Structures are given as structure tokens and as C-alpha cells.
């Protein structure tokens, strides 16, 4: 064995011991509904003492954000160590101690575009689960045409002044801070007059209103800015160059959404999921449709794996995130349609639980860029079609 491989095995064995001693028994159940994992922030109600303890223990080791540098609250793990980390967590079915848009989206953007001071100021509270962030991108008039941002941000001498409205802000009513796209130059071409700003949700003039969805829950909000002023230094990257930050962050968001695409139903085979239902798979047409969905699921999962392997081998994956997002989310919608069809009348009751999941998947092909936007990106950037 090489020296590197030796060191990696030492790391694995130490990590395994640490997890064994520190992960509470009730946290060894990687339940994948949205409430079972801590989202952090001032408003978070821990569901148990174990959930709080598990978070605190992981924070001291940097394991909430294992690949972030130690000075920003991470554990500074390399790519191979990170893989070992996920393997060992999975081996005891451990829940992740913390999840948030700060970890998935803002963190990577700040690590790439932020100043050293910004990183020191904003990243450690994300890593400790103290500050929960939300994403203010979409506006009532800027959905797929994301760059058509109208929320106005003016230079008011020693501070910025913001007026406007955001929509589809996930968990804005539970978040402490928002990262948002605002228009800082209304005369520039639309991609060139946008800035990426950070605003405390407690600032006077910021308000939110939850939007009730067809699934009965309200994960999204409208967010309003009425004469909101905030300090000059709360801008990431250059003024009017926020689109660069936004695009970088969107790639991370799409990967996150598509990764969820293949494994709905806890990664179980669709056939097994459907066989649980009362009607089972006796209907030949339903069985045929389920078989097709299963074939496609296996192939899409292999494609996710192939792209991961490719990027680990240093081969570029280009605009693959748009392909994975499109294929993964469309497939997920098909799968949940089949779950409902197999469930029949049984699945129609709210208490049954299948209907909210089914309805939730309808947003998969809209959020983070619609399927049609993904196809347009691919046709231009990959296929080189005019447009």
C-alpha cells in the first residue's frame, strides 16, 4: 500500500471510532423527509436533545461542512477523504447533522467569489448552524427569464437602499439572512447591471408571506423589500457582476436537485414500491409503464455515477448539470405518477402521505430552471444551435 493509502486508512479508522462514540443512537436513521435533518438558524426548534448534541459534536470537528477550510468552520477534507466521510456516515446510516442553502449554495459561491473578510464573517456561522440563509432570485416578472431582475438597489451614499419583491423564496419565513440578486444599473444590458447582495432578514422593511402550494404545505414565500437599507460591504463579487456569482451558484443548485431525482422512494426499486400498494402490479399497462420508468431510472442513476467518475478523473462534464437536472426531474415526476396510479383510491387521502409527495415533484421541473430552459441551454451550449 502506498503512503497515501495508509494515511487514508488511518483517517477512516479514526473517523469510524469518532462516529461510533459520538453519533447518538437516534441519529442513526438517515430519514429523508425535510424535518428529520436540522436546518439550523435562530428559529430552529430542535426535534430532540440528540439532534442538538449531534450538531454540536459535528461542529467541533468541522463535519457539518467537511470540505470547507478549517478557518471557515470546515474540516478541510480532501476529495478522497470526503468520500470516506460519506461512506462511514452511510455505514452507520447516520443523519447529516445539518443541511441548508448556506451549505449547498451560498457557501460555495462565497468560497469562490467572496473576500477573505466575507468568508471569515459569513461562513463559520453557516458551519455552526447559527445562521440560516434563503435565496432571493426569482421575481414575479422574472421566472425563467431570471436575469430580468427588477428589484431596485440604489447607492444612497454610505449604504444601499433596496425596493422590490422576490417570489418562490424557499423558507424565507424561517431564514435569518437572504442572498439576493438586485438591479444596480438599470441602463446596462440586463445581465450586466445585476449585483449579488446579502441582507439581514431582520432589517426594517423586509417582510415575508408564505405561499400555500397544491401539496398543502408552504415551503415558499413572497419576500418584500420596502426602503430596506444595508451596509455597502454586503456585496459579493463586483458591483454589476452579480450574474457571474448567480450562474456559479445555479450549477450547484441544479446538481442538488437532480441528485434527488433518481432516488425518490428511498432508492428502492419502483416495482417494490408499487408492489406494496393494494392493487400491486396486476394491471399490465401500469406494469409496463413502471418497467419503462425503472429502466430509465437505472440508466439515469448510472449517468450520475458516470459524470461523478468523470469529474473525479479530471475529465470535464461541461453543461451536464442541465442534462441531469432535466432527465432526473422529468423521471421523478413519472415515478410519482406511477406511485399514485398503483395506489388508486387509497393514495387519494391526505393522511396517506403519497399525494403531497406526488404534488411536490411537479415543482422539480420548474425550480432551479425549468425543463424548457435546460433544453435551451443544451441546444445552445452543447449542440451549438443558433439562437
Amino acid at each position, binding site marked *: 500500500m502506498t503512503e497515501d493509502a495508509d494515511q487514508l486508512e488511518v483517517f477512516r479508522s479514526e473517523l469510524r471510532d469518532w462516529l461510533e462514540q459520538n453519533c447518538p443512537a437516534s441519529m442513526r436513521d438517515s430519514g429523508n423527509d425535510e424535518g428529520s435533518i436540522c436546518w439550523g438558524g435562530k428559529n430552529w426548534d430542535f426535534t430532540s436533545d440528540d439532534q442538538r448534541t449531534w450538531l454540536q459534536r459535528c461542529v467541533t470537528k468541522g463535519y457539518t461542512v467537511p470540505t470547507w477550510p478549517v478557518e471557515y468552520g470546515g474540516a478541510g477534507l480532501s476529495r478522497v477523504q470526503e468520500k470516506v466521510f460519506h461512506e462511514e456516515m452511510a455505514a452507520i446510516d447516520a443523519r447529516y447533522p445539518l443541511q441548508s442553502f448556506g451549505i449547498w449554495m451560498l457557501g460555495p459561491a462565497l468560497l469562490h467569489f467572496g473576500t477573505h473578510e466575507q468568508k471569515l464573517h459569513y461562513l463559520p456561522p453557516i458551519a455552526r448552524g447559527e445562521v440560516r440563509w434563503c435565496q432571493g432570485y426569482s421575481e414575479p416578472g422574472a421566472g425563467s427569464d431570471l436575469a430580468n431582475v427588477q428589484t431596485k438597489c440604489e447607492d444612497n451614499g454610505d449604504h444601499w437602499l433596496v425596493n422590490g419583491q422576490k417570489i418562490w423564496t424557499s423558507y424565507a419565513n424561517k431564514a435569518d439572512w437572504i442572498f439576493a440578486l438586485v438591479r444596480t444599473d438599470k441602463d446596462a444590458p440586463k445581465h450586466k447591471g445585476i449585483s449579488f447582495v446579502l441582507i439581514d432578514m431582520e432589517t426594517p422593511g423586509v417582510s415575508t408571506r408564505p405561499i400555500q402550494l397544491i401539496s398543502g404545505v408552504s415551503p415558499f414565500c413572497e419576500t418584500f423589500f420596502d426602503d430596506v437599507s444595508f451596509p455597502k460591504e454586503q456585496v459579493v463579487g463586483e458591483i454589476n457582476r452579480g450574474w457571474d456569482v448567480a450562474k456559479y451558484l445555479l450549477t450547484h443548485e441544479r446538481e442538488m436537485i437532480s441528485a434527488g431525482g433518481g432516488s425518490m422512494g428511498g432508492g428502492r*426499486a*419502483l*416495482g*417494490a414500491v*408499487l*408492489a406494496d400498494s393494494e392493487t400491486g*402490479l396486476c394491471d399490465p399497462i401500469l*406494469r409496463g409503464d*413502471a*418497467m*419503462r420508468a*425503472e*429502466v*430509465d431510472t*437505472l*440508466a*439515469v442513476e*448510472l*449517468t450520475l*455515477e*458516470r459524470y461523478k*467518475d*468523470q469529474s*473525479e*478523473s479530471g*475529465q470535464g462534464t461541461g453543461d*451536464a448539470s442541465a*442534462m441531469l437536472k*432535466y*432527465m432526473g426531474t422529468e423521471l421523478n415526476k413519472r415515478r410519482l405518477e406511477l406511485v399514485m396510479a398503483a395506489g388508486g383510491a387509497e393514495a387519494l387521502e391526505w393522511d396517506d402521505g403519497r399525494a403531497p409527495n406526488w404534488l411536490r415533484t411537479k415543482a422539480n421541473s420548474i425550480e432551479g430552471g425549468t425543463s*424548457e430552459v*435546460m*433544453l*435551451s441551454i*443544451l*441546444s*445552445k451550449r*452543447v*449542440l*451549438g*444551435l*443558433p*439562437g
Partner: protein
Amino acid sequence: MAKLVTTEEEVMLADAARGFLDDAAPVSHLRGLRDAGQTHDAALWKSMAEMGWAGILVPEDAGGSDMGHAAAGVLAGEMGKTLVSSPFIATAVIAATALRQASDTRATEALRQIASGDVTYALAVDESAKFNPEATQLEARREGNGFRLSGEKRFVVDGGNADRMLVLARTNDGLTLFDLPTDRPGITREAKAMIDNRNAALVNFDNVEANGEDVLGEVDDAMRVLKPALEAGQAALAAEMAGLAAGAFGMTLEYLKERKQFGIPIGAFQALQHRAAHLWCECEVTASAILNAGRALDQDPENASMAVSLAKARATETAQLAVQEGVQMHGGIGMTDAFDMGFYMKRARVATEWLGDYGYHANIIAQARGF
């Protein structure tokens, strides 16, 4: 399991194959054969054998290059791109894999003849319109120390010109695989022209004599030899179909960029852009299944069934989509014989049926996944 990444060797093999085939067997070569009333080109197969393709699955000590199934898939994929007609899958993949399961000297000699390009094989399994080896009726009746074969095989691809045949027959307690020369007395072949310009023979067996030497593997235990051979063939055919889809898609994409209507390239219309992008996505997803099947056959052949069926099922769907979109997006010209897209459509249809269609392979997956 090795990573799902194409290796440098595979990229080099693909480049070398492309270079050779663009020169020796572009689509116009198939058209030339068709116009001359021929279904195969023995000289082309000789050249392929000289490059080591005929022996790609033959052990080195029998004169092969023994590069494995993923490499065979790379070659099949490149052949698919320009619809190359050759005995590659039936001979170099299926027959070679079957012969490798039997390690006797006769099998080694047969492998040597495959690698040198001197002998070609056809697969005589089908008896009805759908692939179903287990339903074989052709009978091999015991007689003395040997057998007498009686019955009929259909859809024997390249059966009109192959030197030998692998024949699946029903024996006392199961199925037995025979390796017979096509000129054995009692065998009559009627080569029928298929839509893809290959021939598929209707083969009649009238009390054909066979002995123990002609049995490949064990009597009553054909599947031990035939199953790995069929899986290898199915994976290679899937790779060919993925290549076919890529070839058809490449032509279509080019056409979208150059064909003008209403004063602009038709590729500027979003209706066509989205269809083209969707097709590209399907091709990418299928490519993963193809690579995975090659890796599975090379590393864990005992447990490769699901990976192989996934590859064949996906490749079937993707090739069908690619040729249908290909004709539609080309418009009227796509319907003409003068244009190549029709050749892609016809080959896709034949390859869809050969060695099990979508439903056959989806069923294998469904069973493995608890349906």
C-alpha cells in the same frame, strides 16, 4: 467495479476504428453493396481480422488480442455510426464467447480460425418471430453415439454466407448447443433479404447427423455456454445501436444548422432545438448503460444479466427515437432512398428485434427488481 470512465486505450481504439471505417466502410459502402445485390463483403472482414478485430475476444494463445467486452463495444459502436455490415457480432463476439466457455483443443482451434478471419459463424436460435431461446423445438434425437437434428431455424442472421452455425436444439433433458458446418448434409439454407441489407436465413435440418464432437459444452446444458455468449452479443449489439443513434443524430444536427427555411436555419426554431436537445440527453443516458454493460461483462460476467439487458433496452429506445426524429427533422428528403437516413431507420428496426427486443429485456430487469 472500475470507474464509468472511458479509458485512454478505449479512446485510442475508437479513433483507430473510426479512421479505418471512414475510409473503408462509410455508409456509401453499404449503399454500394445494396446496389450490387450483395449482403456482405468478405474482403472487408479480412481487413478487420488483420487489425485484430475478429480476435478481440479470443485469448492471445489462440491468436487473438483478448481486449475484452468493453473494447468489443467500442468497435461495435464505431461500426454502428456508419452502419458497417460485418460478421463481427455473430462471429467475433457471440461464437468466440461461446467457444471460450469450452476449453478443449477443438474449441481452441475454432477460436484460432475466428481470430484469423478464416471462419465466420451465424447464430441459429430463433424459431418464431420473437427471440425466445427457451422455447426451442428443433429436436436433436439420440441415435447410437450421436444425434439426428430435425426442425427449422429462422432469422439466422448472416446464415446465408456463414461457414458455421451455433444451433440450439432440444435434447432428452434440456437444450444442447451444436457447432456445425453449414454444409453438413441435410442442412438447407434459404437466404432472405432483410430491410437492412443483411440476409437472414431460413435453415432446414432434415435428419442432420451430429456427434459428440459437434456439441459445444455439455449435452442438456446449452445455457452454461450460450448465456454468456448471448449476453456478450446483446451488449455488443446495444453498443452498435448506440453508435447508430449517434450517427443518425450527428447527421440530423448538421442538417438543423445548414437547412434554411423562412430565411433562417431551421435549428433556430425552438420546437426543433428542444427535440434535438432531448435526443442528445437520451443518447448520453444510454451511453452510461453501454459502458456499464461492458465493464460488468469484463469484471463480473456471472452477474452481468441486468447490466446487459439495461444496455439493450435503452439502446433500442434511443436508436428508435434517433431514427424517427432523424427522418422527421429532415423532412421530405429523409424519406428518399437517395438520402442515408432510411438506412439508419431500417438497421435500427432489425437490431431492435435481434437478440431480444425492448420488452424481452425490460422483463429481465423487472424480474431482477422485484416486479
